[in-house]
C-alpha cells in the first residue's frame, strides 16, 4: 500500500485530523474575536488567519510535556497545541481576571502560562528570541535539554534581538527552533521594504546553522521540516532557522485598514491558498474527511467557541486595586 503524504513524514491519520482540528479551532476563535470587536464588545483583535497551518504544523513537532514555547502575538494555533483552550483565549480577549496569559493585564495575543510551558510575551517585537535561547541554555545546564520553539514575523527578523539571539544560540549550539512566519507584510510595509535577501532562511548561514524555507500553507511540510529540526536539536546538533511562507488574510489588527496598502486582488488570490481550505481538500483526497464530517467538525468547534465566549463574557474583571499587585514578589 502506498503511503499518503502525511504518513510518509511520520504523521498518523489521527494526527493530521488533530492538526486540522487545531487549525479550525484557531480560525474560529479568531473569527469570533473580530465579531466581538466589530460589535464593540472587545477593544482589540490581532489575528492568526492565514498562518494556522504554519503554527499548528510546527507546534505539533514539539513535545509539549517537555519543550517550551516563546511565541509571538499571532500564534493562536501554536499556543492551542501547547494546551491553551478557546476559553483561555476568549478570557484574554475580554481582559478578564481568569485569563491565564496575564489576568487581563495584557492585550490579546500576549501569550503566557507556566502550566502550558509558554513563556510570557510582551509587545516589543523579537524580545522573545533571546529568551528562547536562555531557556535552552538553562536546559543544557540542568540537563533537561528541552527544545525551545520561538516564532516571529519577517519584519521582526530585522530587529537586533533576532541577530543577537540567533548568534548566541549558534555559538552555544543550543536546541532552539527559530520560526519565522513570513506573511509578506509588517503592518503596511511589504517584504521588499523589510529585507533584501531571497528568503529569511538565508540568514541562518551567518549563524552557522541550517536555514530552511517551507510553504507555510502546507502543515504537513511545515511539520516535516520542523520535526527534523527538533530531532536535530534534541540530538545536540543545535538550532535551525525555519521560514514559513504564509500570508496574512486579514488586516494587521482591528486598528488597521489594509486596503490602504494592498489591493484586493492580491488578498483574493491569497485566499485561494487559505491553508484551511487546501488542507481540508487534502484530507478529503486521502479519504480522512468528508464534507459532512467537516460540517460536523465545524459545528463542534462552533459550540466550543460559543461556550467559551459566553463563559468569558460573564467572567469577572480583575479588581481595580489589583493594579497595584505583583510589581515585586512578596
Amino acid at each position, binding site marked *: 500500500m502506498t503511503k499518503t503524504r502525511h504518513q510518509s513524514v511520520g504523521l498518523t491519520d489521527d494526527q493530521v485530523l488533530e492538526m486540522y482540528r487545531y487549525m479550525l479551532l484557531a480560525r474560529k476563535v479568531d473569527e469570533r474575536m473580530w465579531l466581538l470587536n466589530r460589535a464593540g464588545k472587545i*477593544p*482589540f483583535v490581532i489575528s492568526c488567519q492565514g498562518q494556522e497551518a504554519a503554527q499548528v504544523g510546527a507546534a505539533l513537532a514539539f513535545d509539549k510535556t517537555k519543550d517550551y514555547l516563546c511565541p509571538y502575538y499571532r500564534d493562536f494555533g501554536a499556543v492551542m497545541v501547547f494546551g491553551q483552550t478557546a476559553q483561555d483565549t476568549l478570557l484574554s480577549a475580554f*481582559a*478578564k*481576571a481568569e485569563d491565564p496569559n*496575564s*489576568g*487581563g*493585564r*495584557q*492585550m490579546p495575543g*500576549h501569550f503566557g502560562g507556566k502550566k502550558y510551558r509558554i513563556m510570557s510575551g*510582551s*509587545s*516589543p*517585537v523579537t524580545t522573545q528570541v533571546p529568551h528562547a535561547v536562555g531557556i535552552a541554555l538553562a536546559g543544557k545546564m540542568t540537563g533537561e535539554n528541552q527544545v525551545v520553539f520561538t516564532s516571529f514575523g519577517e*519584519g*521582526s527578523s*530585522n*530587529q*537586533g*534581538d533576532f541577530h543577537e539571539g540567533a548568534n548566541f544560540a549558534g555559538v552555544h549550539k543550543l536546541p532552539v527552533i527559530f520560526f519565522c512566519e513570513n506573511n509578506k507584510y*509588517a*503592518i*503596511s*510595509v511589504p517584504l521588499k*521594504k*523589510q*529585507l533584501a535577501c531571497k528568503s529569511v532562511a538565508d540568514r541562518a548561514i551567518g549563524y552557522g546553522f541550517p536555514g530552511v524555507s517551507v510553504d507555510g500553507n502546507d502543515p504537513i511540510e511545515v511539520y516535516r521540516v520542523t520535526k527534523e529540526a527538533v530531532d536535530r536539536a534534541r540530538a545536540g546538533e543545535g538550532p535551525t532557522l525555519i521560514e514559513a511562507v504564509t500570508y496574512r488574510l486579514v488586516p494587521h489588527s482591528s*486598528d*488597521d485598514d489594509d486596503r*490602504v*496598502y494592498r489591493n484586493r486582488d492580491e488578498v483574493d488570490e491569497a485566499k485561494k491558498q487559505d491553508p484551511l481550505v487546501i488542507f481540508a481538500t487534502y484530507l478529503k483526497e486521502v479519504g480522512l474527511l468528508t464534507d459532512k464530517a467537516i460540517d460536523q467538525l465545524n459545528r463542534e468547534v462552533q459550540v466550543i467557541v460559543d461556550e467559551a465566549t459566553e463563559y468569558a463574557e460573564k467572567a469577572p*474583571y*480583575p*479588581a*481595580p*486595586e*489589583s*493594579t*497595584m499587585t505583583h*510589581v515585586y514578589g512578596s
Partner: protein
Amino acid sequence: MANMSYIDAITLAMQEEMRRDPRVFLLGEDVGVRGGVFRASNGLIDEFGEERVIDTPLAESAIVGVAIGAAAVGMRPIAEIQFADFILPAVNQIVSEAAKLRYRSNNDWNCPLTIRAPFGGGVHGALYHSQSVEAMFTNVPGLKVVAPSTPYDAKGLLKAAIRDEDPVLFFEHKRCYRLIKGEVPEEDYTVPIGKADVKREGTDITVISYGMTLHFALQAAEKLAEEGISAHVLDLRTLYPLDKEGIIEAASKTGKVLIIHEDNKEGGVGGEVAAIIAEHCLFELDAPIKRLCGPDVPAMPYSPPMEKFFMLNPEKVLEAMRELAHF
C-alpha cells in the same frame, strides 16, 4: 487662525517644514503608504514621495542610527517611533550617539534630529502602548525633551524641534491627538524649546503639569474657580532641560504646589521639578510640595477597571487641587 486637532497640527508642522526645507525628511515604520498608524503623516508621501517619507524596516535602533548619520551630514530627519514604548531598542543610539555627538567631537559635528513618539495611555493600549517613557531621557545632557499639550504648542514646538541644531525627543500624548482641539495660526511660527507656559493665571495654588494631565488640571481649575479657589497652571512643555525660572516663578506665585503627571511618581519628571522648587524657593512655600502621578507599577494594564484605576482624570485632579488649596 484655524481650529484644528492636536494631530493635525503635527501633520501640518511636518508638511510646512518639508516644503520649507528640502533637507527635512521623515522615516519610520508605516509612516509612508499607511500615513502612520495614528495617521500623523497622512498624505505626506503623496506630496513628497517615498524618498522623503520612508517606510523603514522594523528596527528602531536603525531608524534612529540611520537618522543620526543623515543628520550629521546636514539633513534634518524626523524619525517616528511608532509608540513611545518602542523607543527602548534605540536608547543606545539616542543617548550614546545623538546626545553626545556635539560634545564628544568638541563641536565639530552635531545632530539636528527630531524623534517623534506617541506616549501615554487611556486608549486600551495595555502595558506596551501606553507608557510615559520621558523620565528615561530627562537626565541626558545633549538631548532636549519636549511634550506639548495643545495644538498651538504642538505645531510651534515641532517646527522649533525640526529647526533645532540638536536632537529633540518630541513626545505626543496619544489621547490628545483627536481629543484636544485649538486655534492654530496660519502663519509660520515657532514656540521656543526650553520655556514653560502659564496656561492659566491664578493666585491660590500652582499646578505644574504637561501632556494630557495638563488638560485635567485646566478643567479642574474651572470647577475650583466656582468654589472661589484660583489655580495657577503651568505647562512645562519642555521636560529637559527644565525651565527653572518659569518653575520657580510659578511656585513662588502661590506658595502651594501640586505637580501632576501620568508617568509613575518615583523618579518621574515631577521629582526634579519639586527639587528645583525645594532648592530655590523653599521659604516661599506654605505647603509641602505635592505630586499626583500614575501609580508605581510597571505600566498600565489592559483590563478596563485596571486601566481606569491607573489613569488620572479630572476628578482625581480636582480632589488633589482642592485638598492642597485647603491645606
